Structure formats: structure tokens, C-alpha cells
């Protein structure tokens, strides 16, 4: 009798774990055989049918896991640098030597100046752990990759909706009839989006792809809007205008579910301008439209007005809705006014507005559904609005990304299409309002842990991390005036700030899983130089660099000490509710990885899971919570931590099978927990109770359940924030109000950026010298830099031409085989050119992170990635060109510090074909040699 645990294709057993060929967190069935040496070998990897993320499907990367696991680029032992930085010359050392070296570097820093350690992690799925380690160490300088990735989406989403795009929310694929996708090529939720698109397609629902480039998801879109980069906010607000003009908005939803009726003080120049009018209890007020009385926003009896001028304690006030309508009804947002800028015809904007209205309001229905709101009012239905949006880096990776994302959320609110059938839904632990998120913590003290987690959301200037002189406390200047709401830090600024000694020099840069000497940095050539820059005394300006990678990347060559990690099939990990879990709208979930094969590197000192190494190092450093009273290591390894660590009493990294195995969410540590996960396919899920599925920010059953399973400690109902008061506070500071005010030079920029309502501003000024845009896209079959070591994947994308729009192609007289030079204010690259017609006529693009430095990734030095691959990163500077006043702003969103990759402006010319793409960055020696000539994997461990 076949059963679905049965091994297949000659395999002898199946191990269920979590994929990590990308951060999508799919469940995989690893089919194992006994290899020629008797050790288990991977026969085959396929999707786990029971897994909530991927439901059995698997992507190209996931299927290529064998080639990653057997990659010749795998590191094999700890290493210390013997050649100059960047040369790639290393000597293998023992783990003891490696750990003692690290300890000896870090211990003195902790005792004297913990901020001299900058610990930054890349696409870290253990952030709640690495952040906790950094907190215990006491350095304020910790963050992961979010700041250069998509913090705009997270920050705008959480502050506006208490939930966000990324993988934290999703369209209601089963009911949605009109789906708009803004600026997405692949997404973090890549398999779920593909599954979802498949569902929409099977039903013939309409998909609108808003993207300068028509590939992938946008290729299958029923309609493609080839927008000009950076203009989505303007486009969305033009849609808002059309809907407002026509009265096609969900008024009931706006009144009940958003702060549209809240009264805002309107007194330009005053110290409370833009703040909410609040009652004595501090709660925001609305004006009752029946009699003009002021009521608390959550008064169930209130019938709030949406327009009018009111007086609250002598302060002139107006409802948010009226301020919003006044702004967006202006002709500046008329389709005709924005059409040219956006590259979208006025007619198309009008039609899309009409379609949105039609689907949201005419194809809507009252779905019978019993639920009770948080005030105890019972409801017998929810109103379906079958319109959903999703957006990612095409929106976020611009300097106006935060506000653009807000504009999209406002549009969703007007349509009443969030947390209703057919609309956009949150995944637990969301919904979770801003108030439930921590504030940032700094104030490092020698020898002591930080008072709280590093990252969070400042509610106003009072929460910024500034020192007594008003200078940034953090090396990346997060939570400073330059990036006040940098909820994910600014990893992309660390190296340049450290090298500039601004705000201060550091001693040790400790990086994990981030290829900062290459594709994850802006200004790659510059960063390579900074990492090797020396002082007058001959020492490096960044004295020490520790790095943990699993493979021979470009960054490895720039480190002094390498702590080699395992591959994803060889270690324990947890994909925790404290981080980025595997929840879906109807279930909370988390998952583990476990060593389905042992990490063996015969003839070498071997590799160790980074988290276990970090615990070992923490114990050697005597970090609180990592040692017991006698100073002995408290956790054997990461697996032990996953089971025994408690963040709050009863709440640990893993939520499933706590206590004696019957408690979920909350409960005492259970030594059997990991075994229970394995037996359940590597993951745990708790299903949202029936009454808690919709309208969750306001749904009592949801909050009760969220408390019960430990997502929050107390119910926190809230309404969506169309008007964002925290921004108003920063704006007031920029106007000189309050006792914490920004330096003069930054005030204008801050005042403009901190607009409580998005205004559709473009990300930068036009420069006729650089008339074109240039962007990258993620290829579905590659994950950043890691894919190139993969013998199978690299055949699909072994080089990346620069796609030139048809009109420009012909104008410049391009022919097949020509190369193109692309130049920005900062740099120049040359690479093969290719023609594309389905692209915005002013936009060049290429696949991301295909170009490689010769010598890296165990590739042959003349591999195509080095000769015909290229990075746009060489063109993008972490600072903007100097302004009139000589100051250089960072190339990021002034609200969140999000790296503005896609603001890149360029010009181009046709050039003859070359031997290799430029810039030529030289080669690095390979500490792992070069991969074999022939790969022929027989599914039994032999290649």
C-alpha cells in the first residue's frame, strides 16, 4: 500500500525539512538513499504536499538543492586570511583557533566600547536570535538586510495597516477577481504567489501587472501597465482621485475601519499642527455628524462626520477624510496631469479606476458570517470586496517608496478591500498595530546588554537614537534624523560610515550571510576599495572583519576570519513566529530545519551551523543568558536553544508542542519538541478559529485567539491609519517645534518627506544628462549570488545582457551582438545588449546578481558570469550626488532609510563587443579550488 511518507525513485527514506534555496520557507521532502560510502545521499527533493507555504510545489531553485548541497564552492574549514584583503588567500585553521580568535577580538570591545562591534546579518532567518545575541553583547549596531531590501513595505504597511505586503499578507486568491501587482518580479513569497496566480488564472480573474518590464508574473498579467519607475504613488493617487470624484469609495469601511473621521488640528505653524485632536484620556476624537458633539473615535454610538471644520478646545480641526479629499481631488492628480510622468495614458488610469470600482462595489456581496467586534457588537455578515493588491521592491526600492506604499494602502482602504473576502488578508502574527511593536533601543553601556531589542518603530523624535550631541548612536545612522523610521536598520551604510569614521570608527565588522563585497552593496567597486583601505599606519581602516558564509563568495575574500556555515540540509534552524514564520491567513505556523544529512567535509576541519557557533562564542564571551551561574554554556547548540530558550515566559522560538506536548503557542519548554516537529513534517500550524477569519483588527475572536497562542499579550484592536500622526510629529520637529529638532541642513528634506498623507512626490530630480532609468529584476531560477555555484541553475542564467527598449535600440542602431555602455553620475559599465519591446520605453533592465568576480564560487576564472555578466551595483552610489550646499544625502528613503536601488538614472551608448564586461574588478584566489569538469549526478551521492 503506497503511503505518502514512502521514499520514491529508489530512495530509502524521506526527511521532511524546510528549503533554504531562498527565503520563501517552503516545506520539502528530501528523499535519501544510502550512498556508495554507506552514508545517506540525497536522491531527490520535492515539495511537501502538506506544507502551508508551498502545498507540494517546488521551484527551480528548490529542485536544484542537490547541486547546492554538493557545490564545489562549499567552505570546508574555518580560515584566517594570509594574503591581503580581497586576495582570497587563506589558511585553514581549527575551530578552536577560530573561536578563540573571535573571542579575543570581541571580549575587550564588550568591556570598553561595545558599539565598536558592528554585527550585521543578511537574509537571516534567525534574526530574533542573532538580534538577541547582539543585544546581550551590548552593541547597538545590529540589523539584518531589511534596510536595503524592503523596509519601506514593512514600515508603511505596519504603520498604516498593522500588517504589510512582503510575505506578511496575501491576496485572498480563492475569491479575488481583480488583482493588481505593483513592482514584483519574484517576491519573497514566490511559490505562494505563483500558486495564487495559478488560481486566479484557472478562474480567469483579471490580473493587472504594474511594472516597467513585462516578464514573469507580469507576462501572464491580463493587462500590463508599463509604468515609469518611481511613479506608482502618483498613479495610485490618480486612481484615488477618480474614485473620490465618483464617490466610489466604501464610506462605511472608512468610518468604521480607518481614521478617516478622526479630527486633525489644522493650524499651520502651530506646535500641534497635524496632530489628532484628543480627549482628556488621550484618545482621538471624531465629530458626530448628527449634532457636532465630540466623541471618542471608538464610541459605538458615534456617527462621525467626514467633513467640516470643528473647534476642539479652541483648536481648528478637520476630519482626515476631508483633508485627504481636498488634497487628492486637486487637479495635480488628474489622470491627464500624471499620464506623461507615469507613462500611463489618462484613459487607462480612468478605466482602471472604473474597473476597481466596478469589481469592488458591483461584484461585491454580503457574505453571511457571524463575528463580534471588539466593542462587543455582533455582526452577521462581512462585505466581500474582490480586489486585491500586492507590491514589493518596485515600489519600495525608491526614495519615495514609503509614501508610495502608503498610497497603495490608502487606495485599498477606500475600496474597503482589506481583511474582507476577496481582498488583502494578513497572516499571523499580523494584524498587529504599530503600538504593539517595540521602539528602537540603543544607549550601549560597556559590559552590559542593551535594554531591549535594537529595531523598532519610533513614534516621534523622542524615540530617535541620538547621543547627547544629537549625533546618531548607530554606525548605520538608523533612527537618526537621516532615517528616522529605519525599522530594519541600514545595512547598506555600515561599511561606508565605518570607513568614514562617521559617526565613529569601529573595530570589528561581523557579517553573516551577506555578500557585501559584491551584489548586496551599492557602489560595489567603491566598497571593495573601502574594505581594503588602510590607515597611515598601514592597518586597515576597518581593523577586523569576521564573516560567516557557507560558500566561497566574493565577501569571503575580504574577511580576516571565516566561520564556515553548513548548507541548509545539514543544520538546525527555526522559522519562528518571532521572525518570519510560515503562517497563512487562516493559520499561524512555524517550522524547523534539521540535519537531514551530516555536514561532512572530509580532510578538513569541517563546518558548523552559524547559530551554534554564535552560542559557543557567546558563552566564551560570558554573555548573559548564554551562560549559567557557573559561567558554563547554557545551550549545547542551536537545537537546544530552539527548544529551551524562552523570550517571554512560556513563549519560545518554536510554538508547537510545548509543555508536555499538548500546549501550543504558550507552554513550558518540551525536550521532545524537535522530534514532534520532524514527525509532523518539519512544521507546526494552529488554525485560526472560524469566527476569527475576517475583519481581524476589529474582531474579538481574533484577539482572544492571538492572546491565547502567544502572538500578543493583550488584545490591541485598532483602525487603519490613513493619516499618520508619527510623521506629523517629525514634521513638526523639522519645523523647529519641540525640544528635539533636526539640524538645519536636513529640515527641508524632512519636512517634505514626513507628510502625514502621501503626496505622490517623485523620488528624485530629473537630470537631462541621465534621461533613462535602469532597474534589476530577480530571475525566478536564481537566488542572488548563490545560484551561480549551482551547476544546473547557472546554465539558465550564466550571463545577463542589458535589455534595451525597442525604440532606443533602433534609435541607437543596435544590432545583435552589440554591447552597451551604461553610465550614471557615479560609474560606467559595459555589457552585452539585448532587445526588448515589452518594456517601458525609458527603462533599461537586467537580471540581478548574475555577474561574478573571477575566482569566486569555485567557477572557472573564464566562466561566463565573469566575462558576460554584470552588476548594476557599480552604477549605484550609497550617496546621492552633492547638492548645491555640498551635502550628500544617502541614496535612500528619507523616512525609513530604505536603499533606493531603483532610483538609478543613466544614459547609454552602443559600443563594440568586448572580451569581458566592465568594470574589471580583478580576480580572487579560490580557497576551495575549482569545480569538477563533468557533473553527472546519479541520485546516489556520486557526481
Amino acid at each position, binding site marked *: 500500500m*503506497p503511503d*505518502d511518507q*514512502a521514499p*520514491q*525513485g*529508489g530512495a530509502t527514506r524521506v526527511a521532511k525539512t524546510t528549503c533554504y534555496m531562498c527565503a520563501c520557507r517552503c516545506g520539502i521532502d528530501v528523499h535519501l538513499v544510502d550512498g556508495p560510502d554507506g552514508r545517506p545521499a540525497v536522491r*531527490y527533493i*520535492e515539495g511537501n504536499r502538506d506544507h502551508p507555504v508551498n502545498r*507540494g*510545489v*517546488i*521551484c*527551480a531553485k528548490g*529542485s*536544484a538543492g*542537490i547541486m547546492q548541497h554538493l557545490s564545489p564552492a562549499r567552505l570546508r574549514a574555518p580560515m584566517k586570511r594570509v594574503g591581503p584583503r580581497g586576495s582570497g588567500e587563506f589558511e585553514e585553521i581549527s575551530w578552536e583557533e577560530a573561536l578563540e580568535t573571535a573571542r579575543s577580538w570581541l571580549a575587550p570591545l564588550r568591556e570598553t566600547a561595545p558599539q565598536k562591534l558592528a554585527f550585521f546579518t543578511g537574509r537571516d532567518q534567525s534574526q530574533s536570535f542573532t538580534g538577541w545575541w547582539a543585544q546581550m553583547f551590548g552593541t547597538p549596531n545590529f540589523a539584518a538586510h531589511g534596510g536595503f531590501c524592503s523596509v519601506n513595505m514593512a514600515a508603511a504597511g505596519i504603520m498604516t495597516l498593522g500588517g504589510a505586503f512582503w510575505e506578511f499578507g496575501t491576496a485572498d486568491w480563492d475569491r479575488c477577481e481583480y488583482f493588481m501587482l505593483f513592482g514584483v518580479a519574484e517576491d519573497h513569497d514566490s511559490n505562494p504567489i505563483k500558486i495564487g*496566480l495559478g*488560481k486566479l*488564472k*484557472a478562474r480567469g480573474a483579471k490580473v493587472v501587472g504594474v511594472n516597467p518590464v*513585462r516578464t514573469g508574473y*507580469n*507576462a*501572464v*498579467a*491580463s493587462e*500590463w501597465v508599463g509604468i515609469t519607475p518611481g511613479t506608482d504613488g502618483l498613479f495610485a493617487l490618480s486612481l484615488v482621485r*477618480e474614485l*473620490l*470624484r*465618483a*464617490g466610489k469609495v466604501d*464610506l462605511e469601511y472608512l*468610518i468604521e475601519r480607518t481614521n478617516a473621521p478622526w479630527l486633525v488640528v489644522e493650524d499651520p505653524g502651530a506646535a500641534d499642527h497635524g496632530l489628532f485632536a484628543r480627549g482628556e484620556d488621550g484618545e482621538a476624537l471624531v465629530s458626530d455628524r448628527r449634532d457636532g458633539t465630540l466623541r471618542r473615535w471608538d464610541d459605538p454610538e458615534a456617527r462621525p462626520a*467626514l*467633513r467640516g471644520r470643528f473647534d476642539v478646545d479652541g483648536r481648528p480641526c478637520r476630519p482626515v477624510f476631508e483633508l485627504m*479629499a481636498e488634497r487628492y481631488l486637486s487637479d495635480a492628480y488628474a489622470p491627464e496631469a500624471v499620464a506623461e510622468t507615469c507613462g500611463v495614458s489618462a484613459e487607462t488610469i480612468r*478605466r482602471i*479606476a*472604473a474597473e476597481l470600482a466596478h469589481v469592488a462595489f458591483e461584484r461585491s456581496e454580503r457574505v453571511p458570517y457571524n463575528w463580534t467586534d471588539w466593542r462587543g457588537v455582533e455582526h452577521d455578515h462581512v462585505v466581500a470586496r474582490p480586489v486585491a493588491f500586492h507590491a514589493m521592491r518596485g515600489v519600495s526600492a525608491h526614495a519615495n517608496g514609503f509614501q508610495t506604499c502608503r498610497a497603495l494602502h490608502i487606495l485599498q482602504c477606500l475600496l474597503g478591500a482589506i481583511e474582507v473576502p476577496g481582498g488583502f488578508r494578513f497572516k499571523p502574527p499580523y494584524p498587529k498595530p504599530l503600538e504593539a511593536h517595540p521602539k528602537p533601543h540603543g544607549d550601549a553601556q560597556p559590559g552590559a546588554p542593551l535594554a531591549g531589542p535594537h529595531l523598532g518603530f519610533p513614534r516621534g523624535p523622542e524615540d530617535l537614537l541620538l547621543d547627547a550631541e544629537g549625533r546618531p548612536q548607530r554606525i548605520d545612522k538608523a533612527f537618526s534624523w537621516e532615517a528616522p523610521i529605519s525599522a530594519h536598520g541600514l545595512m547598506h551604510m555600515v561599511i561606508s560610515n565605518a570607513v568614514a569614521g562617521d559617526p565613529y570608527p569601529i573595530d570589528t565588522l561581523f557579517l553573516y550571510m551577506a555578500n557585501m563585497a559584491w551584489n548586496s552593496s551599492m557602489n560595489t567597486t567603491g566598497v571593495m576599495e573601502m574594505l581594503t583601505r588602510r590607515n597611515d599606519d598601514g592597518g586597515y581602516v576597518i581593523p577586523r572583519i569576521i564573516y560567516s558564509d557557507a560558500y566561497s563568495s566574493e565577501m569571503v575574500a575580504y574577511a580576516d576570519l571565516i566561520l564556515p556555515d553548513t548548507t541548509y540540509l545539514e543544520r538546525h534552524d527555526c522559522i519562528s513566529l518571532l521572525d518570519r514564520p510560515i503562517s497563512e491567513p487562516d493559520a499561524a505556523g512555524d517550522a524547523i530545519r534539521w540535519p537531514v544529512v551530516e555536514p561532512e567535509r572530509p580532510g578538513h576541519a569541517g563546518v558548523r551551523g552559524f547559530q551554534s557557533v554564535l552560542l559557543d562564542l557567546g558563552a566564551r564571551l560570558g554573555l548573559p543568558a548564554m551562560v549559567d551561574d557557573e559561567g558554563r554554556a547554557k545551550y549545547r547548540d542551536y537545537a537546544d536553544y530552539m527548544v529551551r530558550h524562552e523570550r517571554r515566559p512560556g513563549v519560545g522560538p518554536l510554538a508547537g508542542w510545548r509543555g508536555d506536548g499538548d500546549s501550543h503557542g504558550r507552554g513550558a519548554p518540551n525536550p521532545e519538541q524537535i522530534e514532534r516537529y520532524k514527525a509532523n513534517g518539519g512544521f507546526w500550524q494552529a488554525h485560526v478559529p472560524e469566527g476569527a477569519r475576517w475583519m481581524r483588527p476589529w474582531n474579538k475572536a481574533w484577539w482572544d485567539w492571538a492572546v491565547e497562542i502567544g502572538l500578543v499579550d493583550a488584545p490591541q484592536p485598532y483602525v487603519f491609519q490613513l493619516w499618520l500622526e508619527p510623521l506629523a510629529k517629525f514634521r513638526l520637529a523639522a519645523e523647529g517645534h519641540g525640544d528635539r529638532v533636526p539640524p538645519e541642513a536636513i529640515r527641508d528634506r524632512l519636512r517634505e518627506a514626513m507628510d502625514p498623507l502621501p503626496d505622490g512626490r517623485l523620488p528624485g530630480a530629473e537630470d537631462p544628462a541621465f534621461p533613462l532609468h535602469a532597474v534589476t529584476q530577480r530571475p525566478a*531560477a536564481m537566488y542572488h549570488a548563490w545560484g551561480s*555555484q549551482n*551547476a544546473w*541553475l547557472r*546554465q*539558465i542564467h*550564466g550571463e545577463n545582457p542589458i535589455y534595451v527598449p525597442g525604440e532606443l535600440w533602433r534609435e541607437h542602431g543596435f544590432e545583435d551582438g552589440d554591447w552597451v555602455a551604461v553610465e550614471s553620475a557615479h560609474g560606467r559599465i559595459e555589457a552585452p545588449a539585448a532587445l526588448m*519591446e*515589452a518594456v517601458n520605453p525609458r527603462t533599461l533592465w537586467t537580471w540581478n546578481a548574475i555577474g561574478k568576480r573571477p575566482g569566486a564560487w569555485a*567557477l572557472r576564472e573564464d*566562466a*561566463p558570469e565573469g566575462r558576460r555578466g554584470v552588476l548594476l551595483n557599480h552604477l549605484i552610489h550609497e550617496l546621492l550626488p552633492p547638492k548645491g550646499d555640498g551635502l550628500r544625502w544617502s541614496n535612500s528613503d528619507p523616512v525609513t532609510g530604505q536603499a533606493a536601488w531603483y532610483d538609478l538614472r543613466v544614459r547609454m551608448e552602443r559600443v563594440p563587443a568586448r572580451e569581458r564586461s566592465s568594470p574589471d574588478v580583478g580576480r580572487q584566489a579560490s580557497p576551495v579550488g*575549482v*569545480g*569538477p*569538469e*563533468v557533473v*553527472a*549526478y546519479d*541520485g546516489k551521492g556520486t557526481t
Partner: protein
Amino acid sequence: MTSLPSEPTVKLGLVIDLDTCVGCHACVISCKEWNTGAGGAPLSDMDAYGEAEGTFLNRVHSYEVLRDDAPPMVVHLPKSCLHCDDAPCVTVCPTGASFKRGEDGIVLVNEATCIGCGLCAWACPYGAREMDRAAGVMKKCTLCVDRVTSETLPEADRVPACVRACPAGARHFGDLNDPEDPAARLSAARGGMDLMPEQGTRPVNRYLPPRERDEGAVMDLVALADPAEDAEAGGGLGWLDRALAKLG
């Protein structure tokens, strides 16, 4: 062997939905992964970490379609053996290694008798056959015969690896000679087409054409809106008071 079987009654094959395929290559790699260890010679990759030329049984191409009155379309087209009824790759084979099964129409290569002459690949108009350079034998899509006819795999997994993998659900497998088969029904409903019908190969695999794109019915917001004589009143919010009044 080399002669084609008389019309098989079961015609196993794939239905590939070009309206849905996002071009992700999942089917390409999952195919390689399953089949490299499926018992025949592994699917080799020569100069694997240099120029890299490997054997794959399935490949995804991307095309642009330039239209006069609408923006260009981009279509991803996955392509593996179409298990043709009139398979020229079978009749040209000098050894009989290339054959079509009578029971289900699957076209296969017997690696033990293949001499690696390459003629079948020449005869195939679809580029569906690739010589394995390391093994010197011809490779092609087996329709995952070892999966679809397995008696040990769970029922749900008796589909080709690529179908099991496809994240977008753009690949369907079934007996395309059985009008009641869901895949055949889907093909019939969506106008499943042959590729290169003029080559006379009578492929079994079907491709569902992309649905119309970028030509949505023109919709007019004003027509959907409330009667708007007073639209411009109150700064463009003329409708608001009426609407609020309705809410009570």
C-alpha cells in the same frame, strides 16, 4: 520496434497552459533532478563550472509577440517531447532504440541499444531530444514513465515530476485520448493547440493558448458613479452628504 504502433488507445501526455506559465523553470530543474537519478545514465553537465553545457529533457523559452494595436505580449513556452503519434524520431532510428509504446503512446529511448547517432534528434522538429555527452546516448522526456506507471508511489504522485513541481499549476497530465480525462477536458475547453502542426507529427501534448491580453472592455467610471449633477459641489465631494445620509 522502430515502426510506429498502430494508433494507441491511451495517449498519455501533457497539457501546458501558456496563459498561466510564468516561465519559472521549476519544471526544467525538477525534471532534471528526478531523471538524473532515475536509473538511466545520469543527465550530465559538461564543463559544469565553466561554459556549462548540460543535458535537459525540458526547456523553457520566452517569446515576445509584437502586436499592432496592443502592447507586446511575453509568452513563456516550456518544451519537452510531445510524444507525437507520427513520431519521425522513431522511424528514423536505425537501431530500434527509439520507440513509441503501444499501450500508452509514450516515446522512449532504450539507452542500452542506442548508438548515439543523433539522427532522431535531427528528425524531431521540436528540439526535444538531447544527446548526453558523457554517456553518448540520446536523452529525452520519458513522460516520467517510472512515476506515472509506478505502483508504489502514492496515487497523487503518479504524475510527472514537472507537473508535480509546477508552482503555477500550468502543467497538466492525463490521457488525452479520453475525452473525460480532466486534462483532455481542459484542453478542449481552452482550445488546446498543436505546435508545428504542419510538420505532420501529430503531437499528443497540447498547449493552451494565452487568453486575450490588454484588451479589457472599456469601462467608464462616470457611468458607474452616483448621479453627479452636484459632483463639483463641495470641492468635488457633492456625493458625500447623500451617501452619508444613506448610512444613517
